[in-house]
């Protein structure tokens, strides 16, 4: 069976489980929404300040929400030792990781679809004319977040104090991604808006490097 086919089966399983339990999406959405609203009330930014600080606040909200969401995606496999059942199947470890990455991307992207319009309204920043470019930046940034996040969620599953370990391991690794995503988003919110190709290329490179690394170490990551 091809890796893509096996990953799609794992993805379908993840979506079915999430639709039934609604554990990840609800917690992620509520948490990120609280962060965005609280920042809005705490700073009460002017439109100029929103352009300056808004991208950082937005990505920190995504980062915290992502780290909250990623841990359970492996933790719930532990409850019934179902990761063993997946690993018993004649599919590659990378296919399991890829399926989980795809699911986490869909969950976080779904949360962003709701959060981003709320952010633009609360922070009084015009969204018109940048939607396509914003989707590109958000897509690349979110992809990097879930690729690295899924890898580190797999690592931290075997650790003691695993809930604490994930953000401790993940956040420093995501620092370059955060900088690039914030810079690329800032360029889009500037007047006039522009797509900063250098930062977008950095985001794409981050995604490719971490995806390649996860392919190389997938067997090691999923073994006990």
């Amino acid at each position, binding site marked *: *069976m091809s890796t893509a086919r*096996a990953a799609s*089966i794992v993805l379908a*399983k993840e979506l*079915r*489980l999430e639709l*039934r*339990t609604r554990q990840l999406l609800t917690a992620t959405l509520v948490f990120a929404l609280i962060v965005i609203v609280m920042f809005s009330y705490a700073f009460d930014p002017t439109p100029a300040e929103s352009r300056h600080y808004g991208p950082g606040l937005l990505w920190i909200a995504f980062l915290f929400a992502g780290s909250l969401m990623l841990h359970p995606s492996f933790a719930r496999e532990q*409850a*019934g*030792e*179902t990761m*063993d*059942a*997946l*690993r*018993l*199947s*004649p*599919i590659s470890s990378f296919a399991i990781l890829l399926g989980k990455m795809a699911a986490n991307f869909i969950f976080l992207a779904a949360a962003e679809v709701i959060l981003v319009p709320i952010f633009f309204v609360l922070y009084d920043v015009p969204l018109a004319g940048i939607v396509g470019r914003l989707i590109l930046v958000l897509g690349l940034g979110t992809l990097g977040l879930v690729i690295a996040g899924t890898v580190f969620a797999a690592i931290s599953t075997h650790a003691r104090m695993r809930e604490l370990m994930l953000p401790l391991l993940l956040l420093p690794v995501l620092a370059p991604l955060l900088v690039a995503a914030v810079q690329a988003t800032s360029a889009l919110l500037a007047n006039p808006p522009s797509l900063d190709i250098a930062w977008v290329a950095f985001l794409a490179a981050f995604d490719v490097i971490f995806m390649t690394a996860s392919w190389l170490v997938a067997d090691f990551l999923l*073994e*006990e």
Partner: protein
Amino acid sequence: MTTPSVPAALALPSLAVSFDRIEKRFGTLFALRGISLDVQPGEFVALLGPNGAGKTTLLRIAALLSTPTRGRVRFTLGSRSASAQESGDGIPAESAKKLIGMVGHNPLLYEDLTAAENLKLFAQLYGLDEPAACVTRALDSCGLADRANGIVRTFSRGMRQRLALARALLHGPSLLLLDEPGTGLDRQATAWLSETLARLRREGRTMIMSTHARSESLELATRAVRLSGGRIAEDTRGSDPASLLARLRSDLPAGSRGVE
């Protein structure tokens, strides 16, 4: 209730497994210390020993869930009369996964999915033709057809173990690994398990089961291997396992469902 069986189209030749000087270390702790064991095609090996003897670790290595620190596992396709070495048809470990089924102490099922959804997922992962038909057949064979749409979380321990065995047999494995499958089962479920294992043995499957000396399923074993401290302490190969079992049982306190 009938016992799970494999469709003729999926019937596979028996698989031998050979452990060659297996060592497994977790940090400084040795779980296995140089285990060498040849399991013949069609054999039913009972692994006995106290907690921490290395039974589960050995089964996980056989299932390719764990990599030995030293040594290797070799899988061989062959007839029931051929030894692992003689048949000489060694197969790569990854290909062997299609020929291995495992029932753990834990049922390895998604509790928030239904019985049918669980089986369909694994039918797809094993690349079986017509997954829906395979699921229907498997549910029929384990007596859970009427609970196909029941969420596994709501199932009793006995029902989960029946579903776990149906999952493990879905792809028609030649080698079945069982890690204390009878733990926590009531009398009726235990009788069902023994009946099922007897049928699987008649079908010529190779089976390795870790269990305790009081288990009723032990009567079916063609060979008993006792582990102690990560080493093989006794192996009844070539002799009747009954004497070892009788001795182990006589050492247990009366009425115990002990770990030995």
